[in-house]
């Protein structure tokens, strides 16, 4: 059983990817297969970037047991107005700074959903967004 939690700051582009890199290292040490590792790495990076680009800051968690890998995120707002719209590929509310760095393609949430075995998102405008994604250990 492995647990880890990471604080992710709003706009922290320079340290972006560090939590995902640590998650990948931990899973490599556990001997997780490269195929699963890739799926988790893509999802964790998107999860991390979403907090950095869109939220006021939040946390990201990793939990691994014998059969499942779970990634979760919880941010401090501002929440998503229309979750269904946010889930559609190509839709993004990223600002110009994020777009100039190559973010804001509207692929983040769809990438997470595509790679996970189970994807859950809840969001409350003015409060925040929580995402939980799970991967079966292959």
């Amino acid at each position, binding site marked *: 059983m492995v647990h880890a939690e990471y604080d992710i700051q709003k706009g922290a582009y320079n340290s*972006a*990817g560090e939590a995902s*890199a640590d998650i990948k290292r931990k899973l490599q040490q556990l001997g997780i297969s490269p195929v699963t590792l890739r799926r988790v790495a893509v999802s964790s990076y998107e999860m991390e970037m979403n907090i950095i680009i869109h939220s006021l800051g939040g946390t990201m968690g990793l939990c691994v047991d014998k059969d499942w890998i779970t990634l979760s995120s919880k941010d401090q707002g501002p929440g998503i107005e229309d979750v269904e719209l946010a889930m559609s590929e190509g839709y993004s509310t990223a600002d110009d700074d994020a777009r100039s760095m*190559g973010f804001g393609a509207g692929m983040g949430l769809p990438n997470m959903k595509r790679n996970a075995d189970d994807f859950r998102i809840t969001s409350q405008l003015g409060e925040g967004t929580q995402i939980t994604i799970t991967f079966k250990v292959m």
Partner: protein
Amino acid sequence: MTVQELMALAQARELTPGLALDGGVTCGYVCDLLSWVMARGQAGMAWVTVQTHMNVVAVASLHEMACVILPDGILMDEAPLEKAREEGIVVLSSQLSAYELCGLMYAGGLAAPAR
């Protein structure tokens, strides 16, 4: 094809000297949208991009890519280069355009990533 051979093909110079260049390159890709690359990246990929910030290194490293190639003589700042050295990601810079680089890479036998 090794990174060394790709460097010659791309008429490129290395911005991360000291890293091994004998690693195998498995496929090529060109894109400047990071989420797009995150969705399609693969181990051993040679990625052509005009983006030069820290997150380029993060994406390349998470996918265990072979190298990043900057076209049009573009250079990278020292901070991301330092990160690239730490992560073992070779960064190359070529005077050729992204279009020319991809043409050479494809003709040289580097396929697109498997779908």
